[in-house]
């Protein structure tokens, strides 16, 4: 019987899916069906969930979560499911393009790869001759293929390597490095009994293993206290949702610390053995009572005290989430430090239901191999952004830097101007605030190259667009995905690259050869690299591909303090302990303990503008993907009915959002789900590239409105300290 609703492939379908139910793929290959199942790793966001890709007649027909991964149980999110829609999107750039029109117009001619490489190499060599190799900047969203762009940059001799991190998690990374000696720390979500989330919107900034862990916890009775000025899906899931005034989470955290210390609710043994600076901390928070915090946050003192007591009582299975996106308020760095102090007082390090250090391969004595390359040339010039430099941004890791330094360097020439920029899977126009200034900088560059699957907003300004193939069309270097035990994952090519697209291992090898740097890329292909990576483990790519991930057989999930609460935990801080007080910060002239600064109140007639993520899009990267675009094609300005009424704005009205002479238009969503003095919108819209045919011109782009504000300690961008006027249009 043919059943219409099951589609035309009813006969073939069960065979293919039965294969999926019983990985590994090698077993599946013995099935009589035509479907092939390829284990791989998702790249629709940075989480990199393990996936199974079902291929029929050379076409991807379905992507699903790899059920072998315990933390996801075969689940993947909407974006992961929509990978096929990215793969087949007619908007993808499928051949190298060289600009013929004005910058930003998006007018290009098709070129061969050789032409494109020649074009870039010639200009790079001229720039190096005139300005030195440091005139090249490279920026990327960190990915498994990072090594190729970084090798190219280092071989070229530039120190100016940037990532998108300063527009996202840099603040928490730096706070964790300072306090714990590493940002390689994770939360044991599914076993936590009491989780306090300071605006970490787990259900929308969706990392599947984390969200699933929290749901598992909640369903067995764990509690989630969630602070957010806006009602988000995480508010709905939380057992307690609190609505603090934006930027006052720090006051809440400080008051929790105060209560825990005053009421002796902290783990004294832990604090004594594993932390330093408790006395300074206690002194610093002495006056931060719940009553004081109530006036800051707008949350009743009784509620704050109760949360602190519950948190203290539930320890060590109580965790304060240190968050991910932390490019928020000027006091965010202090907030992250305060959150880490809460965890220290809970004594939750390295116990089940607490937080734990990632147990990498290194700890088991063997690391992934690498391909052989000569030593990189010595770098003479300093970085343009002062990352890692005393007196400037000493705490910012040089692998990340400050991506916002690009326009600054080009337009002011301080300390010297960048002349060329390669943006890999990274769209500075969508990531760096003050978009008009970045555009101005682009116009002054001698060379701008975009390596991407789409013509991004930046791509429209580029001289050359190099079309990278998608993650489904390429093999990447083996990546580490360690948790409680070490683990590696393998992104394996499922289908051949479409059109004239190429993987980044090939792009940078060939570009290097055209630039005269071929010796740094002395590999034949990606398989050779993977073989070299796996050699130390006596593992082959074919073996790894069977399940798509691998843990050393001797390694077991490990909590260092599970059985012995006094077991040694090596921390890489100066003191080897959790630094509640940081002498390092003091030396650099930063606040070494904890102190509160109140966020400025919105000037009369303005709103604080905040933004967040939705579960079906990743930053600004996915809004044009057909299926995801259909799910959420645009954003709206959330505004409370009281101010909306005052301004004559009704739900669905067209509005203008204005600040400092700039404006964006969009539609109003009048809702009680946001505080009165605050407006909210989802991030990632306001796109301008003509190559993004679906999303171009839709929604409100906050990057066009926000100024660049940089946190002096962490180098992180500050994106929630902007005030806007809203008028009906």
């Amino acid at each position, binding site marked *: 019987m043919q059943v219409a609703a099951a589609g035309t492939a009813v006969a073939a379908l069960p065979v293919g899916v039965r294969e999926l139910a019983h990985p590994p793929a090698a077993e599946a290959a013995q099935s009589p069906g035509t479907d092939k199942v390829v284990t791989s790793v998702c790249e629709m966001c940075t989480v990199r969930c393990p996936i199974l890709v079902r291929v029929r007649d050379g076409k991807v027909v379905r992507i699903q979560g790899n059920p072998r991964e315990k933390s996801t149980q075969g*689940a993947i999110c909407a974006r992961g499911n929509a990978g096929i829609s990215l793969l087949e999107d007619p908007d993808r750039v499928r051949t190298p393009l060289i600009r013929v029109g004005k910058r930003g117009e998006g007018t290009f001619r098709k070129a061969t790869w050789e032409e494109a490489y020649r074009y870039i190499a010639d200009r790079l060599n001229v720039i190096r001759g005139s300005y030195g190799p440091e005139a090249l900047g490279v920026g990327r969203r960190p990915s498994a293929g990072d090594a190729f762009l970084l090798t190219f940059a280092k071989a070229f001799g530039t120190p100016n390597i940037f990532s998108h991190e300063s527009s996202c998690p840099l603040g928490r990374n730096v706070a964790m490095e300072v306090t714990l000696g590493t940002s390689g720390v994770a939360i044991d979500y599914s076993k936590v009994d009491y989780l306090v989330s300071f605006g970490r919107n787990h259900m929308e900034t969706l990392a599947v293993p984390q969200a699933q862990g929290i749901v598992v916890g909640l369903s067995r009775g764990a509690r989630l206290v969630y602070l957010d000025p806006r009602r988000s899906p995480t508010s709905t899931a939380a057992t307690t949702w609190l609505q603090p005034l934006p930027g006052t989470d720090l006051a809440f955290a400080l008051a929790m610390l105060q209560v825990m210390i005053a009421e002796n609710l902290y783990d004294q043994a832990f604090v004594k053995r594993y932390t330093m600076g408790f006395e300074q901390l206690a002194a610093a928070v002495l006056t931060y009572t719940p009553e004081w915090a109530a006036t800051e946050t707008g949350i009743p003192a009784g509620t704050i005290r109760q949360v602190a007591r519950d948190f203290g009582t539930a320890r060590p299975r109580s965790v304060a989430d240190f968050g991910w996106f932390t490019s928020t308020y000027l006091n965010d760095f202090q907030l992250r430090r305060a959150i880490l102090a809460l965890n220290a007082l809970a004594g939750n390090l390295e116990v089940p239901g607490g937080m734990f250090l990632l147990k990498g391969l290194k700890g088991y004595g063997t690391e992934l191999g690498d391909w052989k390359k000569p030593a990189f040339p010595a770098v003479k010039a300093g970085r343009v952004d002062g990352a890692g430099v005393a007196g400037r941004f000493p705490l910012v890791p040089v692998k990340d830097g400050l991506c916002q330094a690009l326009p600054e360097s080009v337009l002011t020439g301080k300390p010297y101007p960048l002349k060329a920029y390669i943006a890999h899977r990274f769209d500075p126009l969508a990531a760096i605030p003050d978009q008009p200034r970045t555009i101005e900088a682009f116009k002054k560059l001698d060379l701008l190259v975009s390596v991407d699957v789409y013509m991004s907003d930046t791509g429209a300004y580029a001289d050359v667009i190099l079309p990278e193939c998608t993650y489904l069309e390429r093999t990447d270097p083996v990546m580490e995905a360690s948790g409680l035990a070490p683990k590696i994952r393998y992104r394996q090519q499922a289908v051949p690259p479409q059109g004239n697209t190429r993987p980044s291992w090939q792009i940078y090898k060939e570009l290097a050869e055209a630039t005269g740097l071929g010796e740094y890329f002395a590999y034949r292909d990606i398989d050779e690299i993977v073989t070299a990576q796996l050699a130390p483990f006596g593992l082959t790519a074919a073996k790894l591909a069977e399940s798509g991930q691998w843990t050393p057989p001797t390694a077991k999930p490990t909590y260092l303090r599970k059985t012995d609460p006094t077991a040694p935990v090596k921390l890489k801080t100066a003191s080897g302990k959790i630094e509640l007080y940081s002498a390092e910060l003091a030396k650099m002239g930063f606040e070494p303990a904890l102190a509160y600064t109140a966020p400025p109140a919105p000037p009369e007639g303005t709103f604080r503008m905040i933004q967040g993520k939705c579960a079906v899009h990743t930053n600004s990267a996915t809004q044009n993907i057909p299926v995801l675009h259909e799910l959420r094609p645009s954003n709206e300005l959330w505004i409370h009915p009281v101010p909306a009424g005052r301004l004559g704005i009704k739900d669905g009205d067209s509005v203008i959002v204005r600040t400092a002479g700039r404006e964006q238009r969009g539609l109003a969503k009048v809702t009680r789900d946001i505080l009165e003095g605050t407006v909210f919108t989802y991030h990632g819209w306001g796109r301008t590239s003509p190559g993004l045919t679906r999303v171009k011109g839709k929604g409100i782009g906050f990057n066009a409105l926000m100024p660049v504000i940089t946190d002096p300690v962490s180098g992180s961008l500050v994106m929630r300290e902007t005030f806007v006027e809203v008028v009906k249009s």
Partner: protein
Amino acid sequence: MSTLTKSGARHQYALVVDTTRCIGCEACSVACRVENEVPDGHWRSRIAPPTSGGSKAPLKWSCMHCADAPCVQVCPTKATYRRTDGIVVIVADKCVGCKYCIVACPYGARYFDDKKGIPDKCDLCAGMLDAGLKPACVQTCVGRALAVADLADPHDKDAARIRSGEARPLHPELGTKPSVYYVVGE
């Protein structure tokens, strides 16, 4: 087609949606869309977000596989029928594409597939269930909020949630006897 449980009784499928575990992420929407090659602009399953006046939780929304299905009643050709295992399906080559079933469904669960020339909707991934697998939405669910219950199986834990009244249908007042059951928190 295998519709027998181990004990020999016929399957009686129902979908259990635990809204207390649903995070509204729409993973199910896209998994379904891709698995079933649903045409652009249409969905067999979506999430209705919580609303101030209505549901406090996100609601997964798809065909309710009603026991007294209006679509089955009105279908002039009997192309739409309810299988003995409870799944309401459309036999493609009996359907004339009159769209009456789309008009008749109070849950708005059906859409018209222009390419095929007939209406379409969720069939609980019947082909996969028949092969002993879970539907796409259930497989991919991030919160593990979805489960296919077999009411013919006395030991089925999800069926027990239906029998105990913990999981309840949407809009029972319509008298359609839906086979999708929702667990709603306080």
